[in-house]
């Protein structure tokens, strides 16, 4: 935390410490600002709380791959402005 209250933006190897990530489902877009090393479970929980969803009924995808709660932006090699897609659970049986 710097003296003027701004978040730490330590450029390490040209990368910002915080990323702006867009989370979108078919109806809403929500922007998150998240540290590179923060687990995405926080982001998921925040999005689900915000949308009033059950965490188990949604699927988060990044570049077509399912995102795990233990992933973080570093492990997924996410860049500033990347998008997480959210899809609802589907079932079928009849």
């Amino acid at each position, binding site marked *: *935390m710097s003296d*003027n*209250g*701004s*978040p*730490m933006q330590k450029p390490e190897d040209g990368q910002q410490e915080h990323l*702006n990530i867009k989370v979108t*489902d*078919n*109806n*809403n*877009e*929500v*922007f*998150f*600002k*998240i*540290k590179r090393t*923060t687990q995405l479970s*926080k*982001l998921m*929980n*925040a*999005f689900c*709380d*915000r*949308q*009033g*969803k*059950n965490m*188990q*009924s949604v*699927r988060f*995808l990044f*570049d*077509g*791959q*399912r995102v*795990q709660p233990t992933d973080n932006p570093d492990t997924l090699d996410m860049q500033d402005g990347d*998008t997480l*897609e*959210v*899809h*609802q*659970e*589907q*079932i*079928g*049986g*009849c």
Partner: protein
Amino acid sequence: MSETHRDWVPVDISVHNQRAHAFAQTHALVSLQTDSLVVTSSRGFGRELPPTASVHPSFKNRRHTVDASLFQGALQRKRDYVRYAWEMVPQDFTYPIEPQSRSEQVGTSMRETDEPVQRRTVLPFPDPLRYRNLHRWGYVWPPFNEDTYAHIGNAMVSNEDICSIMQLTGFHCWYRDTVLDAALELTSLYYDAEDNGIAVASSTTAQCVQFAATGVDDADMNELRAYKTMFEGKKWIFVPLNDGMGGTSAEEVRGTHWALLAIDRPNKRAHYIDGLFSWTDDWQNIGRSLALAFGNLLGDGMYEFCIEHNAPHQWNHNQFRGTDSGPCGPYVVKMVQEIMCYIRYHQRHETEDQISLRLGSGFSSSFNFNSFGERRCLLWTLAGFKASQVANDRAMQHDNMTLGQPRPFGLVELRDPASLLYDAPLFDENTLTSQQLKSHHDIAVRQLQQQQQQQHQFQHQYEHQYEHQYQYQRNMSTSSQNSSGSSGGISISSEAGAPYIQGGYDGAQDDHIANEVEMHDRPASTVRDYDGDVSIEEVPNDEFSPYCFVRDITQRPSTPDQPSSPISDTSTMQSIPDLESLTDNSQDHVEAIRSDQNPQEYDDRNANDDVPM
């Protein structure tokens, strides 16, 4: 000296004899006693635990002796899972602090002339679960919760999914997307699909790609580039279809039925295979939409859309004599396996040019489909996959511990990791007896009731804010209790017209701050500084551009138990142009659709293309 003399207790000389080392270079190193097993191990002196594979350069020769004695009584089932899943340390398989303490009840006092007792090296007992065949996953039911059971490729299966696979009736008998995706991933692994030009899309991938049905411009391609990379090098693509695709966030769970789209890129055909609704236009349109989307995404243009009316019926051709209320999921998996097997057959014989995915009139009679068998096979395969995964992980941990870092070169090449695929002999069919299934069902029912209570509380909590959204959920809950066979994916009127909620979440905001999360109503450029990990920003309603809804998705088909409900408010949906006007090849597409309405035409044309499956 006087105290020592007073405390001294004569010790029988046989004790010292037992502790004498007959072989100076060998001594008892590891021993372990559990409720059902006593293991002692002796080995050479001065060497650490052996790795799981031979290494290069090799170690010196070793001499190992392992004695294992079984006591009466088996390991309790609940302990098994605790040991597996939670990595807790129950009484059995505890690493002994002093392994010899049970067998050597010798005091420290001795005669002055006795040889001093030589304390022996104590090492932790090696984890037996580093060997796959010592696992018992096929015999253990996980608890009924949402914790992760296994990751299979891009699919993730939860414990609840595992418990629901064998459910033949009730709410959990329908395949969830996670279960179907896991089954398709396992099928891909088994047939080595990735290296043979075959791709299987997951249900979520299909949802993402469907937006390409309206055309792909540069902006869309940025979003879909990952999916194009995933499929552009493949010749055959399997896509699971669900009528819940493209729904919005107002619904919790959607969909009623699984079907399959098999894309044959060399012949530019998309085959719609449905075990129940192959004659229903609304369901066919879902397949048309996805075929169009994949054609646009991959630059193939319009595929010839072929509806496989010769596809077996999921009820009539199901060889299971009992009641399975949700066979469409196993049906799709079985169909993908059959077609993959057929493709691999031609690839092995180098006759790929003869591959045609049309299903002949005799295909149904040869379709060996048993929905219960498919469910059981999937459960065992997942259990075997889990056992292999855990064994490989623990073997790696063991090697890292024994060999240290850096690991000697050659170990990775010499180690033969446990197979990740179905190993039938490991899992006995008698594992799943009717009694076990019944007890499991009872447990599942109780846990489901608890889950419903929690859901009710959750529902009540947000009732004031999201009343319009949860109207659907209440409807679905009622219909599922009545076993009506209908579910989400039908009532979309409320979600389409759902207002975008702003404000009114002060309490939630406090929670977010407590969790290093903060929300904002301002544009991204004006997000205020803060010292947390995450901040959230809403997009104002007037700046938000919703995705287009594909026409045939909005006109969702009805289930046999619930008539289609008209969409009351479609004002927020962008109208989708007719399929005929989307591309320059529209005339070809019209012909394809018209020809689909006359299946006899295709049957005659492809009379010689019967799939020898």
